């Protein structure tokens, strides 16, 4: 029950900070590919029921896929901090939030990418995305390091993050991605 109390407290905190009115999906615990697939199906059903535009649904599914697969790949075990994935809505936005424990080594790589993607001018980002995508190399494990880039591109760079030390080796990494409900580009 301690874990339930934690997730309720997290949801209240997010509601206040991000102005979330409704939660469409909350997942808390260890992630795997089966959970990724089920989560995307559920999100799609909920967004169809809420009559979101088709392009917003596709955009959301693609962003969620990258975020969920990133958690699955990079999550590290911790006694009290479990990964989470949340999709909520405010009046104008769809908010996709994730949190998980990563290694300090991963943190350095991720933060460098986040800073670089965030620094690109919004008008230049499509060209930047194309160039980075073109130059990426797919490893035998199927990684091309394109997940965060894809998230930034599809969310028009509306991405926030927080990293906090948990131990000397582990970092808590939170990613908040905002999608405009009506698919009108620009800063939200």
């Amino acid at each position, binding site marked *: 029950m301690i874990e339930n109390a934690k997730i309720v407290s997290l949801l209240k905190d997010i509601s206040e900070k991000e102005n979330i009115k409704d939660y469409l999906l909350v997942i808390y615990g260890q992630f795997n*590919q089966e959970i990724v697939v089920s989560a995307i199906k559920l999100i799609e059903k909920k967004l169809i029921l809420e009559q979101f535009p088709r392009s917003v649904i596709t955009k959301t599914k693609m962003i969620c*896929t990258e975020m969920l*697969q990133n958690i699955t790949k990079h999550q590290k075990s911790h006694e009290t901090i479990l990964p989470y994935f949340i999709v909520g809505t405010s009046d104008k936005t769809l908010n996709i939030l994730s949190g998980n424990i990563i290694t300090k080594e991963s943190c350095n790589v991720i933060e460098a990418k986040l800073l670089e993607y965030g620094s690109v001018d919004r008008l230049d980002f499509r060209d930047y995305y194309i160039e980075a*995508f073109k130059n990426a190399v797919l490893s035998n494990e199927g990684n091309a390091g394109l997940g965060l880039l894809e998230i930034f591109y599809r969310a028009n760079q509306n991405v926030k993050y927080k990293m906090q030390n948990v131990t000397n080796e582990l970092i808590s990494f939170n990613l908040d991605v905002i999608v405009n409900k009506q698919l009108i580009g620009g800063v939200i």
Partner: protein
Amino acid sequence: MKDLIIEASHSTPEVNFSVAKGVLKIKGICTPENPKMFFDPVMEKLIEFQKEARSLVIEIYLDYFNSGSSKSLLNLFIEASKHTTELKIIWISEDEELKESGVILEEITGLKFEYIDKKGN
């Protein structure tokens, strides 16, 4: 040379590579954990197909996909453009978000795509 048929799964698309017709169709959801592993047999079949210079039609009709799969598709298109006598890429999409993904791959490869809008938005 045999056709390549891969059945769809919950996270991978149906693949139908008809050697006799020179048509490769990929349809469904494409979010495998290891896209390279999924696309390797398709790439191998393509390379085998290209040993005899032939024309090829690639038809892509995806619901959604991950970034690794998108990169794999790019590699597939680049390989297909190398030896086929005539290459036609048909990008079928149900909304603008998916169509734009095709436009980006078209820009990167410099190949001409044919677009089919299934439902529009």
